[in-house]
């Protein structure tokens, strides 16, 4: 391998990439845009359902629930001030208990409870509050349930330390950022084949190996640098930085190899974009599944980017280290070897 030739080719590819309006613009805009999305999203999770309460008398069961994490009553001096607060959207819901609630319970009568909901309150909040009032009333009147549920907590218990939506989203954003370069690289290669410049290169002392090395460096470098920049700015390297950086790097190589496949399957720029979009959609599925738990099932492990998403998620959000993730990295390396060698093989045939 001739390093001087490789350096020349990488410089040439970078120049062409920056002169491709579409990819240069998208790369720059995407980076800024994704960072903006991250910082605009809420930095914390509101685990508590806050409900306004006007209660001249607060029944004991209500007081008990007030102490439980996840639920909070905000007390108001008058029903009118409660109404106002809900009307103005300060709270989605408000409960107004009658002054004689305890007397009514003791007399076996049904006290009338008013629930106020703002127009913006989702239907599930309305139902939840109503169910809660009923249940608290049952308890208040001594109608206990002869059912005892014992719960096991599965997975790390994050109560009070929930992962903010933006940190879940961060994974999706970084993968979307680096996977897009796959399409950029593929279209660069396709453009060279379309314009015939690859033939011009192939009659110089440059070897095919040099050519692939340059493309690999270009593709991986571009993707990796963007991913690294993004994760640095959005705090994605605050936990297990070396592991995250390594995974990003390996992910960049994986997507570069996929770019070779896309280039070999494409006959022109448009088809390279078409195949590229399909590949991007597939590769972002695992990150999507992490963002929205439960939306994807076991088959997602067959998608190579699963091991990137899973590792980065565990490392940056759970401080999970090398020991917990070595198997993911190993499998990822296997996928890289397969995809990279396959991509080089099919693309080589296209050049010839």
């Amino acid at each position, binding site marked *: 391998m001739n390093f001087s030739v490789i350096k020349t080719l990488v410089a040439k590819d970078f120049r062409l990439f920056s002169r491709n309006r579409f990819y240069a613009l998208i790369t720059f805009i995407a980076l800024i845009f994704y960072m903006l999305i991250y910082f605009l999203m809420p930095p914390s999770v509101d685990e508590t359902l806050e409900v306004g309460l006007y209660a001249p008398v607060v029944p004991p069961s209500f007081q008990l629930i007030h102490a439980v994490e996840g639920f909070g009553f905000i007390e108001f001096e008058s029903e009118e001030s409660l109404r106002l607060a809900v009307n103005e959207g300060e709270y989605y819901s408000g409960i107004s208990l009658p002054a004689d609630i305890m007397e009514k319970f003791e007399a076996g009568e049904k006290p009338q409870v008013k629930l106020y909901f703002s127009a913006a309150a989702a239907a599930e909040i309305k139902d939840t509050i109503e169910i809660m009032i009923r249940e608290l009333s049952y308890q208040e009147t001594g109608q206990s349930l002869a059912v005892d549920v014992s*719960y096991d907590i599965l997975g790390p218990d994050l109560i009070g330390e929930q992962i903010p939506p933006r940190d879940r989203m961060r994974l999706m954003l970084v993968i979307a950022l680096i996977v897009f370069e796959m399409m950029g690289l593929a279209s660069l290669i396709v453009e060279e084949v379309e314009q015939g410049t690859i033939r011009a290169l192939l009659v110089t002392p440059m070897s095919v190996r040099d050519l692939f090395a340059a493309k690999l460096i270009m593709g991986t470098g571009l993707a990796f640098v963007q991913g690294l920049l993004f994760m640095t700015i959005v705090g994605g390297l605050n936990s297990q930085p070396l592991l995250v950086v390594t995974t990003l790097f390996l992910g960049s190589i994986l997507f570069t190899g996929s770019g070779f496949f896309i280039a070999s399957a494409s006959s022109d720029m448009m088809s390279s974009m078409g195949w590229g979009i399909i590949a991007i959609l597939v590769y972002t599925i695992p990150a999507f599944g992490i963002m929205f738990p439960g939306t994807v099932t076991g088959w997602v492990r067959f998608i190579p980017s699963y091991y990137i998403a899973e590792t980065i998620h565990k490392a940056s959000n759970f401080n999970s280290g090398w020991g917990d993730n070595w198997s993911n990295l190993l499998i990822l390396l296997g996928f890289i070897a397969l995809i990279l060698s396959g991509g080089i093989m099919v693309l080589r045939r296209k050049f010839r």
Partner: protein
Amino acid sequence: MNLKRILILLKKEFTHGPKSFIFIWAIAAPLAFTLVATLAFGTLFSDKADLGIFDRGDSQLPLMAQEIDSFGTSEYGSIEDLRQATESGAVDIGIVLPVGFDEAVLQGEMLKIEGYIWGESLAKHRITLPIAIADLIRDIAGQEVPVEIESITLGGETGTPWNERLLPFLVLMGVFFGGLMLPSTSLIEEKQKKTLEALVISPASIAEIFIAKGILGITLSILMGVVILLLNQAFGGNLLLLIGVLALGSVMAVEIGLICGVFIKDITTLFTVWKSGGIFLFGPAIVYMFPQIPEWIAKIFPTYYALQPVVSLSLEGGGWSSIAVNVFILTGIDVLLLIPVGLAAKRLAQRS
């Protein structure tokens, strides 16, 4: 204008079109976005907890739970499935109902049941779900609710659910992806490959060429608009009027597409213009997504007059009277756009 020639050109567009990746994009992308966005936004901004149930016996509790909208309910066939679902976050809480659960509850027997909590579930869901489960058990036990509840909704307009807020965006995308992209990319491709020159010196006029390309774009556009409304179950009561409005919107999309196809020289520039200029097309849809943005801002964008009638007919139960003015404005825009289309045709004829 020769109808036979138009049909010949149209046949060429149809037979060539389906192989074009843009054609696939124009179908696949809006559909993918519909599914993804509905799921994503539906989940992301929803406050719904999810309950999983494995019933060893034949309890009515799962069915009763499924009828409640304030939380989601899924039934599983085994404890392992339930555990896995809970561990992966598909459900917040999972409970296992023993055999003879309902009978035991009716008889007031003391029951112990297993439950699982997803470690990442929010505190409020860990409160509200058990309360809801207790409420359902009380229903089975036939206990009388010891309270009367009056629910009052305060404030003006009710909040619009996210899937409805997204619909205008999806409809615009469906109509414009096909209507704009297909004629523009087709024209650019023909210019680049010089097949347009060959067409122009044939008896086919530029107008006939434009009409053929336009018909394909309009057909796809209307089809995608209808499909997206179908997927979102948002047809409203006036199907013919709706299709008519979609057709007028498609005409606008096609006219813009033809203009772009003439003045833009290559596909990458087209995508760049599409990406950076998309705000002018989707501006009104963004206003619909965020109701706090005043509606008059949406009226600045020409696409508003295509979008508002669709939204009125499909979501708001409107009729001709609620859309007449905007339909006339839309028709006017379509007619006015014929001027730049004509100029574009003239320019194309001169260049060829």
